[in-house]
């Protein structure tokens, strides 16, 4: 579904990614892990067009999307729930969700049943249903994270990019987030998950890539990487 080859990207003159290749197959959950500053978020930003890649190829469903502006990439079906959630604080929860479906509501993507999907989101995240008319800026961190994920899902995406959904959440809420990710996986949503909590990410993912200083150092089936000492050294070393 999503195939990345030799992606090079960065900010201004600083190059962060030095040629990354990865693949996300349809219906699979792939995770991208690595220590702070390894380039995980930069990878997602380059995929969704928030920054322009310097070189390399990104194919979404076989179509080259590298270098396109983010609104075009989104209209092709790539949803990105960004780092720090980035919900629209001045809009109510419901409007945030509707904006997630913007390409569907404006004819840039097949419309489907937006109303039904909205109800589904409210079922999946009952907290959001309770607060549907509340401004998103007044939500708590955990609720904002739910909203950011639900908003991205409203696109009915081909691929969903999730950037650190656990960031800044209480441990109990982190468990909720991972439970949600697991549910989405069961629903066959194609996902690329960036996480700081490698163990938890490896527990739910099918495939994993470990990033180190802007290159993929290890990759393979998640269950294999779980016990790989190289991964422990590259990443988990941080915690022990």
């Amino acid at each position: 579904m999503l195939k990345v080859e030799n992606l090079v990207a960065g900010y201004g003159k600083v190059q962060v990614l030095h040629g990354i290749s990865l693949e996300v197959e349809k219906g699979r959950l792939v995770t991208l892990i690595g220590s702070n500053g390894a380039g995980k978020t930069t990878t997602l930003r380059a995929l969704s067009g928030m920054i322009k890649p310097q070189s390399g190829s990104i194919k979404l469903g076989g179509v080259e999307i590298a270098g396109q502006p983010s609104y075009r990439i989104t209209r092709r079906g790539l949803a990105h729930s960004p780092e720090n959630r980035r919900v629209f604080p001045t809009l109510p929860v419901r409007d945030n969700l509707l904006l997630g479906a913007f390409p569907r509501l404006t004819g840039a993507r097949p419309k489907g049943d937006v109303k039904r999907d909205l109800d589904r989101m409210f079922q999946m995240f009952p907290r959001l249903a309770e607060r549907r008319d509340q401004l998103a800026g007044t939500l708590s961190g955990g609720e904002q994270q739910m909203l950011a994920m639900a908003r991205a899902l409203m696109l009915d995406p081909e691929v969903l990019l999730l950037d650190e959904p656990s960031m800044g959440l209480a441990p109990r809420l982190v468990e909720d987030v991972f439970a949600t990710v697991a549910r989405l996986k069961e629903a066959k949503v194609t996902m690329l998950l960036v996480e700081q909590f490698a163990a938890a990410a490896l527990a739910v993912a099918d495939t994993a890539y470990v990033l180190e200083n802007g290159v993929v150092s290890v990759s393979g089936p998640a269950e294999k990487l779980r016990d790989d000492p190289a991964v422990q050294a590259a990443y988990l070393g941080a915690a022990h």
Partner: protein
Amino acid sequence: MNILAQLIVSGVSVGMVYAVIAFGYQLTFATSKTLNFGQGEALALGALVGLTTINFLIGQAIGTFWAYLLMLPIVLVFGMAQGAVVEWLGVRQAIRMKSEAGWIMATIALGIIFKNLAENIWGRDPLKFPSPLPEQALQIGPVRVQPMEIAIVVGALALMLAVEIFNRTSIFGKAVVATAADRDAAGLMGVNTSLVITFSYALSSLSAAFAGVLVAPVTLTGASMGAVLGLKAFAVAIIGGLSSGIGAIVGGLILGIVETLTGFYISTGYKDVPGLVLLLLVLSLKPSGLFGKATIKKV
């Protein structure tokens, strides 16, 4: 007491004109953190295009009132086009170059060009704009009000209300609000944010052009009619806060009323002074404006 009431009433109508123009500044500032320094010229152009149109329509034996109503959509469409041109020539590239000074200079330059073109087309002398409503003042209680003054207040409120309803109810309006809140995130929703900025400039000039045809019947029309109005609206936008629609109305009313009072009790020559004084005062005491919210910087 009657004089005071009378002055306040005329202040209100002047203030609502300022409010509409200031509202135009807010529209573009929200989406792009830029605004049109040639807004006064957009207003003058709108009024002049309106003048030509209404004279043409009156020449077709249409009554002044209906001619005025028929003229409005033409002026509004013209305003949108003019705003889009300003954004395209003056702002887009400056935003891309991340040049703070660039858009200020470019919109000033476009203002100068538009003004010069207007002078060449319509001449340098002020022109009389036919009034769609009777010019006989109405006696309401102790005060006398010109019907056009009431029309100004109604028209101004209607325009701002229309934009507000559009932003709240339509998905495109929500996209505008989203772009204002977080441009990158709006892009991730599939919103073409540069188009939204162009659109906000179109709406901004539309507001100015509308303000132009609202005031034209009570003043004179000409290429230089907008300069001072545009400036006053700066003061209003800052007094009310660059991010608050209510602020524009309140700021406009404050300035309009203070000006008419100054004009009467001190001297008409000084009636432009309170704008600057209020402006400096508000910036000193509450820099984000009376209704503005302080922004949080990110490190």
